[in-house]
């Protein structure tokens, strides 16, 4: 099943929660809504699941043959809702056993072989030992898995997941994350967890304050942010504001005292972003294909597991670089030491701040 949202917006008591939402949920793929808390991800999910009416806009559903499905009328919406399942954050357990919870959907739809189907799904989610325990006595992770089982046992065409692994124990997270790629259905996942979005999202919509600020495949979003918000959100440390200057056919990005050679079609006032992984550190000036090589001073050194984060000041502009522990030792990196850093012109991502 495919969904298309056209010009959706939602207001709660005058407060604008979603605006200008245009998106497409593709069949049998994992679409990810990524964004900070309060961005509107949950509301969007609820609107698509027909639990909430949008203030303006339209949602169109297409079945597997590409035919448009009816959304108006109680019967049609009920039909549609029966093909979709939503697993909410902190799901509610019915005041009954795990078995009763998971079998509820099958019972109200008068399906056959209920016991067999339920036992199968309980095993798949590691819940078979908990079959007859009152669901309200379970841990958070177990409840989330029960909610997932409750929905999956109905074999929906579309699965909505709202923050499926936040605040869960590692075992539950692993079970759920291992299961996701195996599911053969359209999945819409809302999360603020970057790694999760990067790992599972085949298409990502980045949301902030109710609007889509960027959309695309993970590789695009994580290397080519459209705005400083996105860049900061995805953890790009090196973002600067400046201007583009052209000289002898080469373009340079100027900010303060620094001139960086870059490759871009844009002109005028822009932002520049550079991933820490793209920066090479060396004790001597590198004569290489990297067009940019600067002398700077190390102003911060921080160990993160097997990696060192090195902050280098070059003429007043801070650069964040990353090296392995071994490199740090071989180069003998220390605070206030002078160091050369180098990076390619093409590694610098130039963008104009998108204010929409």
């Amino acid at each position, binding site marked *: 099943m495919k969904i298309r949202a056209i010009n959706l917006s939602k207001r709660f008591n005058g407060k604008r929660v979603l605006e200008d939402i245009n998106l497409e949920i593709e069949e049998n793929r994992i679409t990810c809504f990524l964004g900070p808390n309060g961005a509107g991800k949950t509301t969007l999910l609820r609107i698509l699941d027909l639990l909430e009416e949008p203030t303006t806009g339209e949602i169109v559903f297409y079945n597997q043959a590409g035919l448009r499905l009816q959304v108006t009328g109680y019967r049609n919406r009920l039909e549609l*809702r029966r093909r979709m399942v939503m697993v*909410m954050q902190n799901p509610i357990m019915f005041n009954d056993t795990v078995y009763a919870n998971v079998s509820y959907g099958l019972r109200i739809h008068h399906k056959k072989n209920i016991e067999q189907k339920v036992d199968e799904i309980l095993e798949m989610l590691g819940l078979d030992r908990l079959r007859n325990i009152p669901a309200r006595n379970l841990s958070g992770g177990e409840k989330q898995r029960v909610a997932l089982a409750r929905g999956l046992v109905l074999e929906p065409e579309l699965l909505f997941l709202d923050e499926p692994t936040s605040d869960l124990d590692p075992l539950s997270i692993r079970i759920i994350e291992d299961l996701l790629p195996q599911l053969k259905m359209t999945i819409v996942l809302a999360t603020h967890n970057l790694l999760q979005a990067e790992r599972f999202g085949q298409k990502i919509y980045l949301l902030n304050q109710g609007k889509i600020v960027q959309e695309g495949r993970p590789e695009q979003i994580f290397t080519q942010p459209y705005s400083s918000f996105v860049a900061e959100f995805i953890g790009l440390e090196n973002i600067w504001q400046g201007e583009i200057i052209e000289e002898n056919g080469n373009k340079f990005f100027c900010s303060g005292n620094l001139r960086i050679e870059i490759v871009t079609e844009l002109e005028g006032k822009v932002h520049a972003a550079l991933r820490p992984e793209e920066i090479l550190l060396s004790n001597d000036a590198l004569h290489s294909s990297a067009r940019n090589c600067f002398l700077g001073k190390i102003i911060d050194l921080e160990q993160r597991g097997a990696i060192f984060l090195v902050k280098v000041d070059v003429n007043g502009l801070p650069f964040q670089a990353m090296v392995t522990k071994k490199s740090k030792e071989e180069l003998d990196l220390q605070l206030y030491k002078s160091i050369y850093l180098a990076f390619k012109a093409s590694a610098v991502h130039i963008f104009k701040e998108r204010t929409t």
Partner: protein
Amino acid sequence: MNPLFEAIGNALGMLFPPKSEILEIVGLSLFVSGCGLILSTCLGLTLGFFLAQINLSPNRFSTLLVNILHTWMALPAICIGLLVYLFFTRQGPLGSLGLLYTPQVMILAQGILATPIVASLSFVAFKQLGKEVRETILSLGANYLQMVLMLIKEARFALLAALITAFARIIGETGMTLLVGGNIKGYTRVMTTAIALETMKGNFELGIALGIILLIVAFIINFCLQRIQTK
């Protein structure tokens, strides 16, 4: 003191084995209050459910309705009795039905008394379930009826407590039941009205015997209520 002990002794004698007169009175009490409970359950549960539904996102209108409900609950039983009496007396608008001094009109009055109790307690019960339960049920593909049944099931203990509370209220109601029922022997004589009138007539034994039974009924009800409220 001696005549009193004698009366108590005679009363117990009426209970073991139970005199048919006593069984008749107790039976009618349970029947009238039972039917009154059924009537108030139908009305009250529906009212409570819909109030909870519109109160999901509280607004001025739904709060007003809840206030009206609570005011109804504050209505003194005897006033309800008076209203019903005036409606069904021969000169009244429904006098032609000849329902005054019948068990039916007693059931009606008790139903009116119990409905706001059932309604407000079930309103609280449903409201406490919260919006999320509703949505979980709907997102699993339930239709409206299935959702209502499941909500009742989820709130079952609180709802049962509501019914028990209402039943306790009406089975002990005297003045109103006397006013509309008339305490006619063999027809509209229930425990409470019988205790009142027989004791006034000096027929202590019957009064005490019925009093003991009513006490036992009240204790059983209260015991059940407490058991449920701990769930």
